[in-house]
């Protein structure tokens, strides 16, 4: 999972909070983390089911496209 580009003009996003723990099993469509951008704060859903491997750190701001999690 990479930091998305949720809307025009967005260059980066802040990983506000993991909604699932590192290593937890997640289902596709389940909200995994909260992302804050200059335009909005939104919940990002898992694209697939599996074990969540968190890479990004809460409170950190990352450029669009940065890898912040894997679902294995």
């Amino acid at each position, binding site marked *: *999972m990479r930091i*998305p580009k949720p*809307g025009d003009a967005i260059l980066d996003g802040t990983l506000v909070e993991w909604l699932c723990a590192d290593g937890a099993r997640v289902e596709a469509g389940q909200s995994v983390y909260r992302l804050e951008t200059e*335009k909005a*704060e939104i919940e990002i*859903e898992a*694209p697939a089911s599996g074990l969540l491997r968190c890479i990004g750190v809460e409170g950190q701001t990352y450029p669009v496209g940065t890898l912040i999690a894997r679902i294995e």
Partner: protein
Amino acid sequence: MAAALGRDELRALYRCMVTIRAFDARIRKGLAAGEFAFSYWPVEGQEAISAGVCAGLRRSDRLLTTYRCVGDAIAKGLPLRELAAELLGRRGGMSRGKGGAMGIHWPDAGLVASTGIVGAGAPIANGVALAAQLRGDGAVTVASFGDGATSIGAVHEAMNLAATWQLPVVFLCQNNLYGEGTPVEMYTRSERLADRAAGYGMPGLCVDGTDPQAVHAAALEAVARARSGGGPTFLEAVAHRLQGHYFGDGMGYVDRERLALARANEPLGRFRAWLAEGTLAEDELARIDREAAAEVALAVDWASACEGAPASDLYVDVYAGRSDDGSLAVGERREPLPGGPCEEQNLAGAIREGLDQAMARDGRVVLLGEDIHDPVGGMFTVTRGLSTKYGRERVRGTPIAETAILGAAIGAALEGLRPVAELMFFDFLGVCLDQLANHAAKLRYLSGGRSGVPLVLRTTEGHRSGPQHSQSLEAWLMHVPGLKVVAASNPVDAKGLIRSAIEDDDPVVFIESMALFFDPSLVAPVPKAEYRVPIGLADVKRAGRDLSLVTYGAALRHALAAAQALSREGVDVEVIDLRTLVPLDLESVLASVAKTRRLVIAHDATRFCGPGAEIAAAVAAELHGQLAAPVGRVGGTFTPVPHAATLEALHSVDADAIAAALRRAVA
């Protein structure tokens, strides 16, 4: 729900809805995971509208949609792979990745265009429908737009014109309850948007847009009316949008309770549950779900694997004919004028004869504009007699509605007609610029060359008609890739240029002049035979050794007078009439200046950022070091065109002002 549809039709309706849902979800999933990044406008919650309406259409019926296009595109039968690749900006996209959601074109399935401009598709739909009406083949055109579009003037103009002409159009308003981030009740007092139809003299229907069978039934009624010659219908289908205006929209403007209710009652699940009660078996429904998901997955995987749009595509399809480097074909070199009898003509008469001959030769040529029909025959009589000769079907007087005129011309051109629209005064450009600059100019490019807009927009530069009827705005249009700009200075050229403009495969703005229409000094023998003056070829009006004077349009007569004055002072001025501003015949200009080493450019348009600025820069770049004097520019002052004659004289270009610039250049 009343089961008016058979089992196969219901299955197809469900398959369509579930495919739309799966496609939309897959795109949003990829965006959320950062798999790809582009602007996307979700359709979740509106599947029943697209599916229900398109189930009532033939493949040959036409559809225009918006950037929220995925549902309409899939329901109209577009291939998922090319659709996905277009959204992803890949070479395999239907428009070679150049348009994205705003450039969805698939004429094979009747999808004429999507647009990124709210409401702009409706006027174009009228032209598509006009072509069908003239063909008489019964094709119906659906103009699909959101509720937000009902606030914009283009849709009003389009509905009024469609009703007036009884065009076979269905105005499909997908009311998802929010104009972007503003709830409907915050931008209108209309209880139902469909109520507005009554004001145009057309029927208005309002249906539950979450019920595919209700949508389908209403669409059938509207489509049947259009197909049988009964004219347009305004069909409003109401369905709460279940996602944001765009992917990433926080939806802070949404009433959470209303949204929760809409999600609990969402159309796909509801329809599926209804089907499962005795229409289709659960395992069949599950199979359709799996097939749709697999088809969508394959399509997006295929799109992801496509290469990006290649650099070699950048300049392709800006204009008709392949161009890898942005150079514009300037047509054939000069053709001699035909022999045979001539007739003394003023500018208005010469253009009229050019139009007349084009109409006689080609049944696809239709004229549209305000007052162009007899007895008025146009504000400046250019079209006088033509409606009497060719009928009101081909010479169509319109409401005072320039966006509707341009849109109808664009739609007709997309369908293969050769429309000539009249914009009575150039100053009215502002009220229809979106249609011209965002649609006529761009549709070839945004469609990856699948479409083209061979229209002519005739317009008049006013003269002594005040600040809003006298402007020379050609520089605005020279800045728009995709347009050609022609300016006639005399009757002989005008007759040949208008013919070339009509036969050109790209949109051409043809600039006429109020000062010249009836100027007796311009009356000249014009060949009676048909002929063409090529677009993109300047004309040396007066050969000279000492100085090049470049001009066009109404300024030419002043330029010639100034050159005459200078010749009495021993200065031999070469006068070049550009005749076409885009494509610009820089070759002729450079050849002249290379010889004379001096250049003055004169035009009526405002000097600041006027056409002369581009010409001066190009000449300076090419002939730096060879110029014997700074390039001179003469143009209108940086003021509105004043009404008072004393002030207008100061604003405008005349022979004295040009002569002064010529003297400076040889001083």
